[in-house]
């Protein structure tokens, strides 16, 4: 009887061996995979186990943290002036994940980034608790406040983007209506309710949409700045004060349709300066048609159209179509037809002109800091393209300054500061049935000839009376306040 007993002993040994091998498989070979599985709740618990690092504007954090009393997540995010900063920060929520800056820089903010590994290991050895690093932004608190309050006073939907032309730093990034990310930061029923209310399905205003980066609007007349730049660069016209070859009324090539001007304005053979001052559709439509689709598209691309921008928060790509016939090109060149731009894109147009033709890559993260505020990474300004020569840029500047001095943009005037700008009133809806978008793009120039700020403002106001909407009336005052705020803060 002992022979089978010995075999049973071996069999039992094999059973235990199988368990040991399986244990090594799940606790050693597969351990990391299981441990870091995003559905493994421990990953979230760990994430909220230590206070998150802060997002900083002008030396002051615009975020904070609070301890939660219920559940297994220890800390939750809080925001100061949440609705104002939401387009910059995005949100991070115990229940709903994270987006935008909070998501992109999650590694630094939680302290899990590989670049913090050595520091974390040291901290572990010295018994210090893990901390998150900080994200220092390029934003200007005063400009942001001016932008957000301007939109809020206006009451309609809209967005503002302000850039520093010489570097590409984003100074203001506002969207309205907005939301308070604090209200969805936890994982309580209250947060879930707030989240549901913010959902686009339940809220036609879509407050969580970052209009400054993610919404494209037909840019309307503000696009004429780009068309003018194309004309100057191509050499079609070289002198802003020389007559152009522009019949009025003008029938678009290949059609029998007249391209109308808004009101009774002196557009016949108008100079570029006058055409921009009065916003002549005929002049710029014909320029686009004369230059052709390819040249216009080429210039639009140099300004950043057709590509997503990573600030590092991604913006939507602005649209300028290819494969259009001359009449479609003409319409596109005055910012209609398929042309659509994000507020960031139009701010980039103003910024490139103001920066003597050099477009700087827009960015909002100045610096990533370790928990002890050592710099881990610093963003250096980067040239993106040179859409137009310095000489042509200065010509265009003088034209835009005329718009503000004597033309449609007079609401943007700032005493003692040279301001260049362009209004826009873009039609939309079937047969222009819906209220147009009011646009204004501008820059302010200091005494030394450099521009500290370029702005784009767009207002989509469903409730306003149609005639009231014009870039000069609704958008220009907001742009002025933002520019003033930047200039004031530089003093």
């Amino acid at each position, binding site marked *: *009887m002992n*022979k*089978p007993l010995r075999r*049973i002993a071996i069999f039992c040994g094999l059973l*235990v061996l199988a368990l040991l091998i399986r*244990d090594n498989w799940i*606790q*050693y070979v597969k*351990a990391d995979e299981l441990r870091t599985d995003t559905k493994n709740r421990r990953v979230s618990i760990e994430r909220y186990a230590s206070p998150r690092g802060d997002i900083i504007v002008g030396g002051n954090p615009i975020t904070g943290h609070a301890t939660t009393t219920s559940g*297994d997540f220890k800390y939750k995010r809080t925001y100061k002036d949440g609705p104002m900063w939401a387009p910059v920060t995005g949100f991070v929520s115990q229940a709903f994940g994270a987006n935008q800056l909070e998501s992109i820089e999650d590694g630094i903010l939680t302290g899990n980034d590989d670049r913090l590994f050595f520091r974390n290991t040291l901290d572990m050895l010295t018994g210090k608790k893990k901390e998150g690093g900080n994200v220092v932004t390029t934003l200007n608190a005063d400009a942001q406040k001016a932008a957000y309050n301007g939109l809020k006073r206006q009451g309609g939907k809209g967005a503002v983007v302000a850039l520093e032309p010489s570097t590409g730093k984003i100074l203001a990034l506002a969207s309205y209506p907005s939301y308070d990310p604090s209200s969805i930061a936890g994982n309580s029923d209250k947060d879930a309710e707030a989240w549901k209310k913010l959902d686009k399905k339940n809220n036609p205003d879509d407050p969580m949409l970052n209009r400054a980066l993610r919404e494209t609007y037909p840019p309307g007349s503000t696009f004429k700045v780009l068309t003018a730049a194309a004309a100057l660069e191509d050499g079609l016209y070289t002198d802003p004060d020389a007559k152009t070859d522009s019949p009025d009324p003008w029938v678009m090539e290949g059609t029998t349709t007249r391209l109308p001007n808004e009101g009774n304005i002196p557009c016949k053979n108008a100079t570029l300066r006058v055409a921009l001052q009065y916003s002549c559709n005929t002049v710029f439509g014909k320029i686009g048609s004369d230059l052709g689709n390819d040249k216009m598209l080429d210039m639009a691309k140099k300004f950043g159209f057709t590509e997503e921008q990573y600030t590092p928060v991604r913006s939507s790509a602005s649209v300028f179509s290819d494969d259009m016939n001359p009449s479609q090109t003409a319409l596109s060149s005055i910012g209609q037809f398929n042309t659509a731009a994000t507020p960031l894109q139009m701010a980039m147009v103003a910024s490139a002109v103001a920066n003597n033709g050099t477009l700087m890559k827009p960015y909002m993260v100045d610096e990533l800091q370790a928990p002890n505020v050592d710099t881990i990474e610093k963003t250096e300004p980067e040239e993106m393209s040179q859409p137009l020569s310095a000489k042509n840029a200065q010509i265009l500047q003088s034209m835009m300054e005329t718009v503000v001095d004597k033309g449609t943009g007079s609401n943007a005037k700032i005493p003692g500061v040279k301001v260049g700008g362009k209004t826009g009133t873009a039609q939309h809806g079937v047969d222009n049935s819906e209220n147009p978008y009011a646009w204004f793009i501008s820059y302010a120039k200091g005494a030394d000839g450099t521009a500290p700020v370029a702005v784009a403002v767009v207002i989509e106001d469903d409730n306003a009376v149609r005639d009231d909407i014009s870039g000069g009336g609704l958008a220009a005052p907001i742009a002025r306040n933002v520019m003033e705020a930047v200039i004031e803060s530089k003093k």
Partner: protein
Amino acid sequence: MSSTTNSPTHHTSTIGAIGAPSRRNTELALLVFAVVIPVFAYANVGLALNDSVPPGLLSYGLGLGLLAGVGHLVVRKFAPYADPLMLPLATLLNGLGLVVIWRLDQSKRLSNYAEAAPRQLLYSAMGVALLAVVLIFLKDHRVLQRYTYISMAGALFLLILPLVPGLGANIYGAKIWIKIPGLGTLQPGEFAKIVLAVFFAGYLMVKRDALALASRRFMGLYLPRGRDLGPILVVWVISILILVFETDLGTSLLFFGMFVIMLYVATERTSWIVFGLLMSAVGAVGVASFEPHIQTRVQAWLDPMREFELSRAGVQDGVVHSEQAMQALWAFGSGGTLGTGLGQGNSDLIGFAANSDFILATFGEELGLAGVMAILLLYGLIIERGVRTALAARDPFGKLLAIGLSGAFGLQVFVVAGGVMGLIPLTGMTLPFVAYGGSSVIANWALIGILLRISDTARRPAPAPAANPDAEMTQVVRPS
């Protein structure tokens, strides 16, 4: 007895046992460790959870120490030559189980469940009491042989109990419990395991020659005669019935596996193993083809993530979807090599049965690979001591009973640990000594008691030969 036909080398273990020291002091020294280690672990949990030594440390340490002490004294008095390792191993596992159950009691996530550690301590005391009863009143395990057929009736009665209307309780799909008003639930299967082993041992001892010798040879295998297939068929059918009516794959597998092991040992015919494996495969696949509960278990084993998603989504399709299998895997994986340390893991995410069927996952997360391997090796040692007892036993009934009990113990550890670790489909069973559950702890202490009794008989020195004036001329022949 068939062992007499074995080669002489096979006698060494039995010969070696004769005149062996009792090893009671070794047992006492090991017991000190078996009590001190859980006490330290208990303090560790308290320090990790509340930054203070738990107030119950002294009473807990004394309680465990008392159990070990009583066990030791009873063994010293009534089974002085018993195996010295089994009692310390069981005490250590029982103690560690108590610590982890207490640790899970402290969990906020599991605050809906009643406090389990004090009850488990009570059950452990009852278990040790039963061990004492076995050792005191069962002077010789061969007495059990007389109750072979009563055991059969008893085992069947215990197995049928959960199916009695009004008495049985369906808990999460398995119907293996009975409700005793005022006392809670009882798992008769745990006790049936021991009673069945007694029946199988008694039955096979009588029938083994018929089962072993009357057979034809076919393709290198000895095929039993048709009528000799009777017993294995009956046990197979009963196992299938358990599977179908109590929807308990684990118990079914355990009983059938135990029978096959004992049949093989009794007859030394490998063909029985082949038959056994074939029959369990046919039975399992056959039942799984129409029993949704079993199908879900198999699906959860093949794709635990899918079950997790289904459970989270609250899919209602007639079967219970559980995220426990996935949660257990995450617990093991998150523990890694060295674990998070006692009290610092999140294995309580498993929820229901975290301190019973799934308790190994908490060991996995908080003590890591190292801890689980240690636990598994402790079980391996208990099984090994059981098999050694079977080898050392001098009577076939003792051999069969010892191998049946230790084989069943080994199968149970494999089925539950393998299930929790995702090696095999999960079946509702408790990890002996460690998991929370009165029936399991009490029955396993009784099992250890019987093994101690058999090993005591096996290792007891043979009575000295009677004084004989012709002694010098007489050659002493040691019995084997």
